[in-house]
């Protein structure tokens, strides 16, 4: 069993990691890079809690052997807040009580970010569709949908410079 070195631009920084064959992106994030914001839920691609952006597209980190994305850009929830300022999606989740136990939250936020990057003004139906692969057992989804729509509205407004 021979390991291999994969190079991934992780949250804007190029990282080379020596991995065992078939190491999933989820394992690389959590075990090698200590980025535990990305959650391990089902390991089957059915719960969405490990959703990250790979080359800008929402994908499930548990289903990706890292050898297959050598050279890609990966963005995780840890990349969203700038200094102490939460990303509008994170802020909207906090304000809208869209997170209860919090397990699904990072996956929900990354799926939403994937949506907003191609569709900055989604309809409610489009938001529901975008998070249809993400399971939340607490909120009943409505507060999450509201938060994503609120974030989209906020991101659509011109940015105010803080003093």
């Amino acid at each position, binding site marked *: *069993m*021979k390991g*291999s070195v994969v190079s991934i631009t992780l949250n804007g920084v190029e990282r080379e990691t020596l991995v065992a*064959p*078939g190491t*999933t992106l989820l394992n690389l994030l959590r075990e090698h890079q200590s980025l535990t914001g990305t959650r391990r839920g089902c*390991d*089957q*691609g*059915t719960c*969405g809690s490990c*959703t990250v952006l790979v080359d800008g*597209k*929402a*994908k*499930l980190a*548990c*289903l*990706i*052997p890292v*050898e*297959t994305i*050598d050279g890609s850009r990966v963005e995780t929830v840890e990349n969203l807040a700038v200094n102490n300022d939460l990303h509008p999606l994170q802020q909207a989740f906090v304000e809208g009580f869209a997170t209860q136990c919090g397990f699904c939250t990072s996956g929900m936020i990354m*799926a939403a970010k*994937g*949506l907003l990057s191609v569709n900055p003004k989604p309809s409610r139906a489009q938001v*529901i*569709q*975008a*998070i*249809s*692969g*993400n399971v939340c057992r607490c909120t009943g989804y409505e507060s999450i949908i509201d938060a994503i729509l609120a974030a989209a509205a906020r991101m659509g407004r011109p940015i105010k410079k803080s003093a």
Partner: protein
Amino acid sequence: MLQTVVTPTSLGDLRKALKQAPTATFMAGGTLVMPMINEGAHGVSTLVSLSKLGLDSISFKKGVATIGAVAPIAELARHSELKFLSVAIESIASPTLRNMATVGGNLFAEQPYGDLAVCLVALDATVTIVNAKSKRSAPVEEVVKKGLKAGEIVTLVSFTIPKAGTFKYAKASRRVLNSASIVTVAAVIPLAKGLVADCRIALGGVAAKPIRAKSVEKLLNGKPFNGKIVTAAAAAAAKDIEPFTDAYASAWYRERVAPVHICRALLRDAAGKA
């Protein structure tokens, strides 16, 4: 235990990898293979990823769509030529999974998954298949039924884009979004002088593999296309299906509702309204 993951970047490299590991397991988007690997006890020692072979292009020429087998299902929705498939595409899993799951991989999804394969059977799509030495082509209908020989992979899927309004689709599932099929109906119903001419109706969720509803097709061909005739013909689907019981629905239920959904698919207008 997984010993090697190979990501060949050309068909030549792939063939080399196949020679070295003839029993390798192939992976495209990973949505079928990786859940099995993550479960453990899978017996896969070499995994060959098809993701970097450059087999993800989508092109159109003289009314024929040619789609690389590794094109993600989500990519189909970006082409206006394939707009007729958008209702079907949106009925498959979630957008996140559709960013990963591939057109070729969907042909090998176990029922009650694989709704795109059902569409491709209805469209009479053809696939290009390669192995370590040679290349052949085969109808999708045959590939979904018999599978491939060891060491073969699908590289391209192609089909003639159906005339506007002739492609029909309906899927019954437990939830509106992201759920497996209870019954999936995809059909191409061409009309000539007001009569049905050589229609193709494919069904998912009602047999071990995607199948054709040949008894229904036979009753429709040569007939006027109206609600009464479609309803009568759809009842014959019972002869074509071999439904199964799973967590989503019982075989009994699938058999009862299959004709209903055939009618809904066929009689729905272009805007998707019944």
